[in-house]
């Protein structure tokens, strides 16, 4: 079993090589004639103005927060799903209650207006 993980290590190392190789190869082959005009931000043809790294509207983060709740709870469901075949009927009832709680969380977020795009 431990030897199999030797394969994983080798695979991961070779993946790293394959992932970096195209850009390294291009860096060797490509011309290097950089100028300040080329290095300008690619926007509308004018020089960019104003800051780019700003505090953006929080709408997107609300979805991220809702995701964290659901992500954690769905990871809790994973062991249940694997053991489902072997578990007594009681486990199905309990999982249903858990899923209803999850659904209630969704209804709460929905009614709270988080899912309404502004």
């Amino acid at each position, binding site marked *: 079993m431990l030897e199999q993980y030797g*394969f994983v290590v080798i695979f991961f190392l070779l993946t*790293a090589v394959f992932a970096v190789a195209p850009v390294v*190869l291009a860096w060797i082959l490509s011309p290097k004639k950089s100028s300040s005009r*080329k290095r300008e931000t690619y926007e509308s043809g004018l020089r960019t103005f104003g800051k780019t790294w700003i505090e953006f509207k929080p709408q997107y983060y609300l979805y991220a927060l809702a995701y964290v709740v659901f992500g954690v709870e769905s990871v809790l469901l994973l062991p249940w*799903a694997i053991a489902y075949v072997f578990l007594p009927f009681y486990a199905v009832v309990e999982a249903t209650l858990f899923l209803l709680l999850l659904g209630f969380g*969704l209804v709460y*977020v929905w009614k709270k207006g988080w899912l309404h795009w502004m």
Partner: protein
Amino acid sequence: MPIYLRYALNSLILLATPFVSVLILIWVARKVIARMQDRLGPNNSGTWAGPYALFQTLADAIKILTKELIIPEGADLWVFLAAPAVVLGSALLVWLVIPFGPTLQGMDPDIGIFYVVVITPFALFAMIMAGWSSRNKYAALGTFRAVAQIISYEIPQFLSLLIPIMLTGSLSLQHLVLAQQLPFALVLPIPALIYFLAMTAEVGRLPFEQAEADAEIVAGYFTEYSGMMFGSFYLAEFINNFSVSLIFATLFLGGWRGPWVMEVPLLGPVWLLLKGFLVFLVLMLFWGAMPRLRIDQILNINWKFLTPLALVMLIVVAWVNRLAFDQGATTLVARAPWLFAANLVVGLVTIGLLKLSSQRAQRRRDAQSFELLRE
């Protein structure tokens, strides 16, 4: 032969497969989309591109290697350079566990499908790295959209993934294939559909293409990338498209199972690649046929439709499967009619509810326009 040399050789073959298949698949995608738009697509009118321009992609790949790599002035250098490698790496790592045949697989860890679930979001990290580090307003916008869309769609994807796991009782991809006496897509059409839509959104194919949206924000998160750094993103996108198609084929279409596969084990990869290729073709047809949804529509479909539906399906399948099992239907084939009937009922109820809500929305719009007319 020393064992580590064999490991290295296996890894090399496993890593070369996506690169070679992508060279063909990009050609396929361009041809399909061209045909849908009544064009010829790549062809060899007097060039060296070979019959039907089969080697066009190879020529493009060689050419893009010789293009200058431009690093924009405001960029966060190391993060900017690392992003293409991360996205390509995450696309390649998935190939470790794809089961091409009963014994033909890089490795079959006990946590197989969980490994896939863990590895694929690394592409999202790369998007954040690329979009934020390049200090470009379009790139930043593309990143925000990509993050909101992709993490949202992970929920229905994961919930519908739980249903095959439930019926199998294992996370190993080999066990998931072996459990499919019938392809799960026939037994569980609704979870398969949810998974397919969520996976389309995960790889950002067309109805859900807000991260790139080339008509609105140039190219989204990789606007600032040029040369082979852009090429890495493009390559990773196609590798991802193909590997999620293969994963879908493994989970819901029976993987390497097919006629005569037990007599001739070499047919395994043929069946899997054929099924995966068909799913890939559907993705490409979507690309050619679909309009781009707005970001709020995309998120609404996810949170107000797919996620509740996936939760309901999880509960329904858990109960129906259990009740059928207690009635004496111990094999998947025996339980299939029960599960299919349950899917049908849920599907019909869903369609009814959707019709009702669309009627309500229509009435609301009518009332609004009526009031506007009166003013």
